[in-house]
């Protein structure tokens, strides 16, 4: 019988009610992946896009050539940022549930990606985040009150009430405005990096998308430009396994790693354990040096897990097992860094409990301050005239007229 063509439908390994099954996940033992020179030729380092760079092993030891040998103090700072990110997310989720904010997106389980990467970069490097990169603002020191005011769309909202919650920006912190449309920031980051190279500056650009967003054409445009111009950029695909209800197989992750698209476009690709703070730090440091020294761009795939729902509008119990996250083979990024610090003798359960308490209090106090500046539906509100500003640098006549019409409509 001749074989017939067929249409393949990717299917996740487990659905609601099933036992979580991560047998599809290919990993490497901690310490097993070779670390090449930062200026190695792409054709000589294709193993990096197939294997999984890991540093922390199951016994809380840091092993192998990617071990970044960070000072314990830096590790404690990293842990602090991750714990703060998680507490912030939990509180803001509750604020959404209580109706204070209209929408929220947690980064549960992915904290190491933003925190370790941002710590491995320089303050002058320009960040083009997605909507699940809260940790970047923690590392760069954005006051929580500022983030909360954006979430509340209140009188101190940096976006002047124009954006959905989570779509922050921070010029001074060199963090670009989040779009809300997927992957648009990827080619923009490449262009920013090209400009840095044109101007002879050694700041690099870094951008993040989810693996689902790698399906958008903008991903491919960005990869091509980054490779053609060897732009000083790090492009990150955060493979958290889920794009709302569709698992990573629908973005093309079934047949080949996302990192392998790097060599496919002629650039370095690294697949890293995204829940391993040390490994994420080390590969970012490697890629940043590579970019900064003219050796070209890198695509990093962070293998991690979206522990929470896509957003407060999503219900993952409809499409994946409830305990999927607990069974994720690469563990929890906070627990793993904490375990490592304890094994080093540089941390303890008591200190951790004290840290959690301190940061919870910090979040609570910040929230108390933020709501004083108003909320979407109560307290002081932004001046509605602001909605006509910034459409253009100078307001054209037709918008002036409309602003007057709105004033009349709303009683002056």
């Amino acid at each position, binding site marked *: 019988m001749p074989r017939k063509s067929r*249409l393949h*439908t990717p299917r996740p390994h487990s*659905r609601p009610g099933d036992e979580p099954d991560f047998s599809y996940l290919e990993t490497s033992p901690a310490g097993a992946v070779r670390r090449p020179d930062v200026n190695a030729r792409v054709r000589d380092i294709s193993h990096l896009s197939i294997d999984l760079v890991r540093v922390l092993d199951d016994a809380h030891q840091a092993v192998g050539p990617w071990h970044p040998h960070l000072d314990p103090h830096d590790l404690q700072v990293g842990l602090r940022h991750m714990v703060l990110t998680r507490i912030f997310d939990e509180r803001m989720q509750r604020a959404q549930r209580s109706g204070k904010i*209209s*929408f929220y997106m947690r980064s549960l389980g992915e904290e190491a990606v933003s925190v370790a990467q941002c710590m491995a970069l320089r303050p002058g490097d320009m960040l083009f985040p997605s909507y699940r990169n809260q940790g970047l603002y923690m590392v760069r020191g954005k006051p929580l009150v500022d983030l909360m005011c954006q979430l509340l*769309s209140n009188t101190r*909202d940096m*976006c*002047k*009430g*124009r*954006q*959905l*919650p989570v*779509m922050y920006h921070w010029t001074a912190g060199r963090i670009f405005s989040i*779009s*809300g*449309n*997927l992957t648009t920031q990827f080619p923009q980051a490449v262009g920013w990096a090209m400009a840095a190279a044109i101007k002879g500056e050694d700041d690099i650009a870094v951008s993040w998308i989810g693996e*689902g*967003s790698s*399906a*958008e*054409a*903008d991903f491919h445009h960005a990869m091509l430009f980054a490779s053609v111009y060897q732009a000083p950029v790090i492009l990150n695909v955060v493979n958290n396994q889920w*794009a*709302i*209800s*569709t698992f990573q197989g*629908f*973005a*093309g992750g079934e047949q080949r790693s996302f990192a392998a698209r790097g060599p496919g476009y002629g650039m370095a690709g690294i697949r890293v354990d995204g829940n391993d703070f040390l490994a994420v730090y080390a590969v970012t440091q490697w890629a940043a040096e590579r970019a900064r020294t003219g050796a070209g761009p890198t695509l990093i795939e962070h293998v991690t897990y979206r522990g929470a729902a896509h957003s407060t*509008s*999503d219900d993952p119990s*409809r*499409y994946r097992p409830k305990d999927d996250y607990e069974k994720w083979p690469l563990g929890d990024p906070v627990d793993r860094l904490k375990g490592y610090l304890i094994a080093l003798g540089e941390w303890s359960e008591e200190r951790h409990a004290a840290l959690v308490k301190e940061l919870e209090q910090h979040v609570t106090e910040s929230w108390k301050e933020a709501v004083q500046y108003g909320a*979407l539906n109560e307290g002081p*509100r*932004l001046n*509605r005239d*602001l*909605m*006509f500003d910034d*459409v253009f640098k100078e307001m054209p006549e*037709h*918008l002036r007229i*409309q602003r007057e*019409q*709105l004033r*009349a*409509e*709303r009683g002056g």
Partner: protein
Amino acid sequence: MPQMNMIQALNSAMDIMLGRDPNVVILGEDVGFFGGVFRVTDGLQRKYGEHRVLDTPIAEGAIVGAAIGMGVNGLRPVAEVQFADYIYPACDQIFSELARLRYRSAGEFWAPVTVRTPCGGGIRGGQTHSQSPEAIFTHVCGIKVVMPCNPYDAKGLLISSIEDDDPVVFFEPKRLYNGPFDGDPNKPAVPWSTHPKGEVPDGYYTVPIGKAEIVRKGAQLTIVTYGTMVYVCEAAARSLGLDAEIIDVRTMVPLDVDTICTSVKKTGRCLIAHEATRFSGFGAELSATIQEQCFWNLEAPIQRVAGWDTPYPHAFEWEYFPGPARVITGLKAVMEMP
């Protein structure tokens, strides 16, 4: 008669067409196993299988491009773009390809693709989940543009769209999914079960593309509108005690000029309302057409009521939305009321 909300009515239309025509396929992000983020395709993959209802990667350009290829190869695809705000990556495929394929091949190649997409604000969606880009599509020659405003029309028009051999972009005002909305966000939500157009036959029927509907007969003026604004205009006219003839355009391309202009010639006054931004909005086309055909019957300048010419701001949703106050201002102007 069964009661349906707009989600159930749209679902029923696709269910019927999947059942009647083995060439009908549905594709889009989250539409299969999950049933769509608004549940419009709920249960269809379970019933018809993974080769009839396909989850896709997040790639709107590829969704429409692949739908064109499927259409050329004999299928009748219904593509979902999750929000109208996300349709722009697909625009090259829609504008340059889907719209012109029949023309450029002298009628030899064509793709009967329906692109469904939820539009409009009123759900706290901010600037990326609230847009009404219908006018952009009406400016492209070769695609039909449809926007129903109730469950009965939604089902009948979607079946017509799927059966149509020309491409259709089908806008679904998401604020109307669960009930009519008169523009006052502080009132309790009204379900479709309280509205006559929430009565939807279980079986096959069509509502023709290219036919407007007179929602309310009246003598004093004609209100030409569509989507969510149908209900806002009804409420505003009622609050002023006006005997308005209200026309739901339903299909922007091809436009039912006859129904609209017959009414305006009768009443002599016209207000046009849509949620989309005013400048180069579809109201401009309506206004120009009505002026050309009804100039000698008009007793006052045609008024346009629309969203402001800004992006849709999250915090100022109801200041942006052309609610009853803005419609009343327009009605007073066209009626020359103090």
